């Protein structure tokens, strides 16, 4: 079912976005915190998380926010998308050209059902362990 957009392995706490979130204007490129005042997870931090994004939306500057988080070591540990979206993956491809380690990106349709807890991405699959 899952498709790898950018390869890699990762482990971390699961953060499932409860509402659509544009990285640009929605996530601070300085701290990795959610800054969209209308978002139910305002203040939560995406850094180091297995970030589950059921519905990727928003500004095409989101790749720049993610690249800056990658360079600063504040990116999510992995990104799981509900459907393919180029905007975030491009940041990973640029990071590769620049020699910076970037998080794996997977597409897992229906990923919004993921539960809070720990997550592990390996060999192109994501596994969850409830808290």
């Amino acid at each position, binding site marked *: 079912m899952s498709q790898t*957009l*950018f390869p890699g392995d990762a482990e971390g706490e699961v953060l499932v976005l409860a509402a*659509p979130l*544009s990285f*640009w*204007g*929605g996530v601070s*490129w*300085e701290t990795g915190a959610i*800054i*969209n*005042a*209308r978002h139910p997870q305002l203040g939560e931090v995406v850094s180091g998380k297995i970030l589950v994004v059921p*519905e*990727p*939306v*928003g*500004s*095409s*500057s*989101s*790749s*720049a*926010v993610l*690249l*800056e988080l*990658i*360079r*600063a070591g504040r990116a999510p540990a992995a990104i799981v998308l509900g*459907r*393919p*979206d*180029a*905007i*975030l*993956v*491009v*940041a990973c*491809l*640029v990071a590769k*050209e*620049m020699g*910076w380690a970037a998080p794996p990106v997977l597409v897992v349709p229906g990923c919004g059902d993921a539960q809070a807890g720990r997550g592990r991405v390996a060999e192109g699959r994501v596994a969850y362990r409830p808290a």
Partner: protein
Amino acid sequence: MKLTDDETAIAAGRDGEGAAVALRLVADSGRLLGADALVPVASAHIDGCLYHGDSGTEFAEFLVAKGARVTVPATLNVGALDLLRPGNVRLAGGRREMALRLMRAYEALGCRSTWTCAPYQAGHRPALGSDVAWGESNAVVFCNSVLGARTNRYGDFLDIACAIAGRAPHYGLHLLANRRATVRVDTSGISEALKRKEAFWPVLGAWLGRTVGEDVAVIDGLAAYATEDRLKALGAAAASTGAVALFHVAGVTPEAPTAESILADRHATIALTPDAVRDARKLLSTAGGDAVDAVAVGSPHFSLDEILSLDALLAGRRVRVPIYLNTSRHVLGKLERAGRLAALTEAGVVPIVDTCVVVTPILPAGGGVLMTNSGKFAFYAPGNTGYAVQFGSLADCVESAVAGRLVRDEAGWQ
């Protein structure tokens, strides 16, 4: 993904390392997105020139150092600085320097110094049916919907890579089949009076983005009311609350002479209700009370027509709180030549070019309440500026600025 012999040679470094990096980025992205090939593009609009940390500057300078140059006409989106009025932006120290270096690096790659999120108001209007590679969500949706040129939402970095490669991944909205509407929006339940209101359009856009996500909709029943500026406001809001990259308005936009002509065989129909409009409008404001500390218009950058409307609504009055007028140097030049700029600035309007109040520190520090007629500003201002937002029409914005407190005409919205 099938690369041509030419493309394979470029990716291997035949035309230099800069061209190779760009081609690899385009091809790798295309492969991930399921593209079967690359498609030549006629032009590009580049969104990567806005500073969000040093990584963007490092990447642009990396491309310059590797000898990259754009191979198709490419306009630039806003940067983080107002290059014509540098004092407008409070960005300080190292950040200011890196933001400027970023803008200069994109110029060094051969891009045009348009510095606007509305390149279509600065003469960049690709032909109906042509393939292009545009970034900036409002520009993308305008390009696809209003001009009928074909682009996906190319994010920062992929946009410049496409401009250097002269090619884009052949997928998504480059394919005619994906441009058909899978949602029909029926607006027959909405009054003519509401459709005539300029502020209806960004509200409709905010609703559309939230309702359809990334799906292509055709909206029926608006042919008598649409203008280019209204379609611009609709698209910008829809691309903020959702991932809308293309919409059709039956009888108005070039690919939809009628709703039937562009509908996919399998499609849903959604009736827009007055309640939904009311809710969407309400969601655009986050502030309570009647305080207004600043007004901002021009996201996307204001057109000359919109500035002339602002001028007419002000009718020579001075404002108590500043109106930040965000536009391009191209449009501001026209305003200056029309002899209207001096009167507006004397009235208390603060022109901002090359950038805007929501992407870089321009508004006074400490926050407060920002009033706007832009669905996109209303969506992004709280997160990006710390200001709470009041949404209203352009007339509401002007009256509030003159009064120094919230003045909003509720007629027709109940």
